[in-house]
């Protein structure tokens, strides 16, 4: 499939345009759900509005006619995430946020031994990658078997793009982890719909809905308290707008963690650098370039800081880590 120059085969530009339009038309029709997802994942603005204004009606039509079927078959063939199944992410009661009596009781979790290590699953958005890798290095490898799966560009406010509730159920069923670390929130600036009304991230309704969605996924990851879930919302951001959203998310996650058995809120927002954003952190006496160029993600060296906070949170549940965390 390398370029060759012998026997060039030519067509008129108009014919080439015809081929392109038909090909893109077919792709749009049979991939309409993917187009909606792609639109949903774009930044707010004209491009997103244009894509969604075309993709949504097209998706309704394709769904009604049955054009989704070939794509569903291909998704199965490639073992992609099923889009079917009921989701509580997009709607449900905030009763899930009521303080849970089981939460008050001291929870005991399976403790690792050299014969049976703890199977720890670290997941979340792109921030989970470095944090998970560093945490893997920190934890004693004879006691903790860690797997890291980062789902880039995902969040809880855009389930049409990636549904974390469905994914959580599938991952738990497939991996049977003993503990979960969830590092997520950097892509959650989208408005959310509550009872047909849209709310922006600067409203109390958004914060409540975010807490509800967090609790839904926490419940699934923790299987209602049978395993600990260490939930790590975003740190401070360089951009002030992001910073406000992240502050709101942290409050929401704290609220959700109070309600869900087994859930632990790991605060890296107000603890690192006293809640002030800085590209540079002091780690073990050394200045470290802790953030990436976007002013949100941790660098690999900087990921040591949040990973230590997760380690400390885990040490409260795992005796084997207590000495090391002091």
């Amino acid at each position: 499939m390398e370029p060759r120059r012998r026997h060039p085969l030519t067509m008129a530009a108009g014919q080439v345009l015809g081929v392109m339009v038909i090909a893109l038309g077919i792709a749009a029709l049979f991939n309409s759900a993917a187009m909606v997802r792609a639109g949903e994942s774009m930044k707010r603005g004209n491009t997103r509005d244009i894509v969604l204004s075309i993709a949504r009606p097209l998706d309704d039509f394709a769904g009604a006619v049955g054009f989704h079927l070939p794509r569903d078959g291909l998704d199965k063939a490639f073992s992609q995430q099923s889009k079917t199944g009921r989701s509580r992410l997009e709607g449900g009661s905030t009763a899930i946020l009521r303080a849970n009596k089981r939460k008050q009781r001291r929870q005991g979790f399976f403790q690792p031994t050299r014969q049976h290590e703890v199977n720890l699953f670290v997941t979340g958005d792109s921030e989970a990658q470095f944090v998970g890798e560093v945490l893997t290095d920190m934890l004693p490898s004879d006691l903790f078997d860690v797997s890291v799966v980062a789902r880039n560009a995902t969040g809880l406010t855009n389930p049409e793009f990636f549904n974390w509730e469905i994914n959580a159920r599938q991952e738990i069923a497939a991996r049977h982890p003993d503990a979960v670390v969830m590092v997520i929130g950097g892509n959650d600036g989208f408005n959310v719909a509550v009872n047909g009304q849209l709310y922006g991230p600067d409203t109390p309704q958004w914060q409540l809905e975010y807490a509800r969605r967090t609790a839904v996924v926490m419940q699934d990851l923790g299987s209602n308290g049978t395993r600990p879930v260490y939930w790590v919302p975003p740190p401070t951001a360089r951009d002030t707008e992001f910073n406000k959203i992240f502050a709101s998310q942290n409050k929401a996650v704290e609220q959700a963690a109070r309600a869900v058995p087994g859930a632990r809120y790991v605060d890296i927002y107000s603890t690192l650098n006293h809640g002030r954003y800085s590209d540079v952190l002091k780690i073990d006496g050394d200045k470290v370039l802790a953030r990436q160029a976007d002013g949100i993600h941790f660098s690999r060296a900087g990921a040591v800081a949040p990973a230590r906070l997760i380690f400390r949170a885990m040490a409260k549940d795992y005796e084997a880590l207590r000495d090391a965390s002091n």
Partner: protein
Amino acid sequence: MPAVSFPTIEFAAFFVVVFILSWALMPHPRAWRPFILVASYVFYGWIDWRWVLLLVGSTLVNTVAAQVIARSPSQTARKRALIAAIAFDLGLLCTFKYLSFFVSQCDDALDSIGLGSPLPLMQIVLPIGISFFTFQAISYVVDVYRGETRAASLGDVAILQAFFPHLVAGPIVRANELLPQLRTPRDPRAVLAGPGLFLIVGGFIKKTVVADELARKIVDPVFNDPSSHSGLETLAAIYGFAAQIYCDFSGYTDMAIGLALLLGYQLPQNFNRPYLALSLQDFWRRWHMTLSRWLRDYLYIPLGGNRKGRAATYRNIMLTMLLGGLWHGAAWTFVIWGGIHGGAMSIERWGRARFQGFRMPAWLAWLITFHVVCLAWVFFRSPDLRTAFDMLGQVFAGGPSPLLTLPIAFLIVATVALQAVRGDFWERAETWLVTRPVVAQGIAIGAILVIGDAAVGQNGVAPFIYFQF
């Protein structure tokens, strides 16, 4: 990076509009030139418009320098203009690409001798494609200086540098390859659609079905945490990365060349079945060909090439490959990657001179070459040296290998084996595609797009590896 990545909805819409307008304006060069330039700047500035300013600045400086070189009767003035342009280009590259690495290394060094960490750590955003358009600019002024190409107008140089199919990840185009094409309007009745469409579709499959699949299922999990994986999985991840980077990078350049062909322009070939190479020298004639010819013409030969004795030749090979490694980024992993290639090429050259008349069996030469390339890829892919050595140490580890599935093994083997398929087979496939009715071609390509999107699933198409360089 949706707008600068070819397999996205935004780019598809952008390209259809550009295709229509480009051919409509083609008979009117005065309208076509500003149009294609603006289109290219829109493409590049989609993520950050400030990058366009950088590109425009580079174009202005290099155009002025080339004009001075072309017009000045004084050799001294010509040389000064050349040096000024190269210093500007390399300065740009160093500022964006190497300054923060250099500062952090100095800081560490000062700290290690007890002077603390006095230098401010910096975070500099790397504009996409800066390495490519900078190398292209250097080749243009050097070619003008050497009399290999004529100094072009500001508009032509701007299009040469910014033409969107090759702007962000190559191929690295030389002035005498594109400028003559810009001077003659293309014929809308004879678009090279056969190779163009075939390259676009082939590149799309390489990227979505092979590269991203291998990255997700074997390469990323193992390189992220080598100690948790068995030797078999580690080996599969190393071979998998060799297949992934080939399909990712050659897939991108296939699409770039195909898109340019549909607009009526031919870009140089960048890959020629590299994993069939029987020596490292052969590999570099087949892999990222436009970079290796750049390194040869503007670095290796000016250093003296093989004209100054054996020791100087080895030194020049080593220097060229080390700098080729550093071109990819400021990290010791890239330096070692370049060092392995430079060292292996020097050993090859020494062996040929020492054991004249000895011919290694082709299968053995292939096996050695492929594995040296794979060894170097371990350093290229690893985020740091520790990970690279962990990977190599883990190759001999036992344990179960659940990540090494039949489809993954098939993708790796198929990527290497398909390179042995003769060129005329692909030409027949091209012929078959382009001689179908327009509707059949459209349906066939549409079906491939659906399959490719299903393969990447909800993760979306990952950014191309070479965007970071």
